[in-house]
């Protein structure tokens, strides 16, 4: 019986000592979906991923992962999940081939030798298969890690900041591959800090201080934030303008993008009223679309006010 949701959890909570790292998070991820997980450092993203694949035990909450009970069937889940850790976690003193072979043996991959050879071919690393893994560059390590986590044909792929420290070209290739995987029916849950990557996800969730603040498609998130945004063009490197804008009624955040400042606020009318006098001074003030980044910064600031 096919299960509609690859991940369906409620009230997931994790505490380390008296610190609540993940607080009553509910999440539903459909099969074949690329789900982006965003949030500042230390917001509980990694902890949440670890709970999904049985590396950590939730203190409260329940749910299913690939139709298996999160708390009881961690063995079954582990076999069907590919987990790519934030820190490279294969053996640097093994060769590429030995690492892949080790993983293939542990998961009992059928036709092991062929699978490993095939994997090396796809990576384009066939000639370097006898090379020690520790000698690879960051980008190659990341590709190897992805290949290794796919070796046992998982149904769900958990990627923890997979592209941190990887150059733009490699990042683009990486995301192309993620989309191919999703097209082949694999569910992907990926954490990231990059806006362009967030925009390539089908749906997104924003986590801060252990709380799930918003979830949905990019458009839904922008709409849900209820922000009005204006673009103000000032002179380059004018910190005084930023400070002045922040002081105006209705202005909730000012984000510089080069010479342009994005000014956002929840109360559209008040914001427009406050910005009107600037036009008289000869500054270019025009309405803008609220970007995902504006929304996330807004969410993060609100979280800071509420939970700190």
């Amino acid at each position, binding site marked *: 019986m096919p299960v509609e949701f690859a991940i369906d959890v409620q009230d997931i909570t994790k505490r380390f000592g008296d610190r609540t790292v993940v607080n009553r998070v509910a999440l539903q991820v459909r099969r074949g979906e690329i789900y982006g997980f965003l949030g500042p450092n230390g917001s509980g993203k990694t902890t949440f991923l670890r709970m999904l694949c049985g*590396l950590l035990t939730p203190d409260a909450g329940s749910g299913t992962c690939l139709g298996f009970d999160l708390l009881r069937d961690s063995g079954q889940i582990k076999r069907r999940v590919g987990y790519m850790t934030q820190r490279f976690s294969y053996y640097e003193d093994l060769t590429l081939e030995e690492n892949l072979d080790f993983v293939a043996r*542990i998961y009992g991959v059928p036709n092991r030798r062929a699978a490993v050879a095939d994997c090396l071919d796809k990576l384009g690393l066939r000639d370097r298969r006898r090379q020690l893994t520790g000698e690879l560059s960051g980008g190659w390590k990341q590709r190897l890690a992805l290949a290794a986590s796919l070796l046992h044909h998982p149904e769900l792929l958990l990627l923890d900041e997979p592209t941190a420290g990887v150059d733009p070209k490699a990042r683009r290739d990486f995301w192309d591959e993620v989309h191919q995987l999703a097209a082949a029916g694999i569910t992907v849950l990926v954490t990231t800090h990059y806006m362009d990557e967030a925009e390539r996800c089908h749906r997104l969730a924003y986590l801060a201080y252990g709380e799930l603040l918003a979830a949905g498609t990019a458009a839904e998130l922008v709409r849900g934030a209820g922000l009005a945004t204006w673009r103000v063009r000032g002179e380059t490197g004018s910190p005084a303008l930023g400070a002045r804008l922040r002081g105006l009624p209705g202005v909730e955040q000012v984000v510089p993008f080069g010479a342009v400042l994005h000014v956002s606020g929840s109360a559209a009318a008040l914001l427009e009223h406050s910005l009107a006098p600037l036009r008289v001074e000869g500054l270019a003030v025009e309405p803008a679309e609220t970007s995902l980044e504006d929304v996330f910064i807004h969410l993060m600031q609100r979280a800071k006010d509420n939970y700190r």
Partner: protein
Amino acid sequence: MSERFSIARLAAMVLKEFIQMRRDRLTFGMMVGIPLLQLILFGFAINSDPKHLPTVVQDNDRGVFARDLVWGLKNSGYFELRGSATDNRQVRRLLDQGECSFVLTIPADFTRTLLRGERPQVLLEADATDPAATANAVAAVNQLIERALERDFTGPTRSLKRAAPAVDLRIHPLYNPEAVTQYNIVPGLMGVVLTMTLVIITAVALTRERERGTMENLLATPLRPVEVMLGKIVPYILVGYVQVTLILLAAKFLFDVPMRGSLVLLYTVSLLFIAANLMVGVTFSTLARTQLQAVQMAFFFFLPSILLSGFMFPFRGMPVWAQWIGEALPLTHFLRNIRGVLLKGNGWGESLPHLWPVALFLTVMLVLGLVRYRRTLD
């Protein structure tokens, strides 16, 4: 957990460990180098036959017989005269301070008693803190005295020449009642070397996975704790066997240690002991957070093992509480077995009483390790 133990996964783990062991040249070199180095250092240092041991004579008789007796001892090369003492307190002080290894006391009535046809008492006090140092001299002394006096028993005193010893020699090995012979050392060293190298090697094994971040990956796979643990142990059993073989070869060809028992029994006895030590290391590494902590724990295990197992000090010379601790250590039982098999030619029957405590220890450690093994990163 619904999953069962999988030989295939264990094999994957074992294979990986073998490859990593091969790559880690330094550690691999140590596994072979340490036994040889220790054997040569310990073996030759302890096995030497010390001569010219400082001796003080308290001659209260000053007769010809007494003088000849003293000279007889001196000529053997074992005893070197370092002057004479006059009273008991001075004698004891010299021994206490380690100024001399022996004090020979000849009673005032030595000549008289001897001529009367009786056996005068002669007291040899030995500093036996390092029994190996004095053992040979002590073993030789009776004969030396007889031979020295025999030459004097000519002419009018020929009648004193008898089958029974002319002198009643009393030896007081001070500070350490049991003398360890040199053959004890090399087999004992086998146990010590195995303990020192194997505990460390596995103690570091799991903590290294944690420190390098590879543990996160291992835990996310279907590998079961027992598979990980056995996977860490099996490759090093072979390493242990290499060490045992090296030491046996050295014992035979360098130190002429007799090998009376069966080699099959010896390797079986060793197997349990090797596994027990490796398991201690694995258990330590489930307790330790870092590699350094694991190494420190290993050292905490070495100290009682070396001091209380009967390797360093005679087991029966230890206080009862220390003996109880010693009985709990696998090295104690291994030493008894290995010495028994090598020197006395013991068989299975004599070895079993010291085999099951090691097996019990191994089981306890395995259970402790499995209980402590963190299945999650919690």
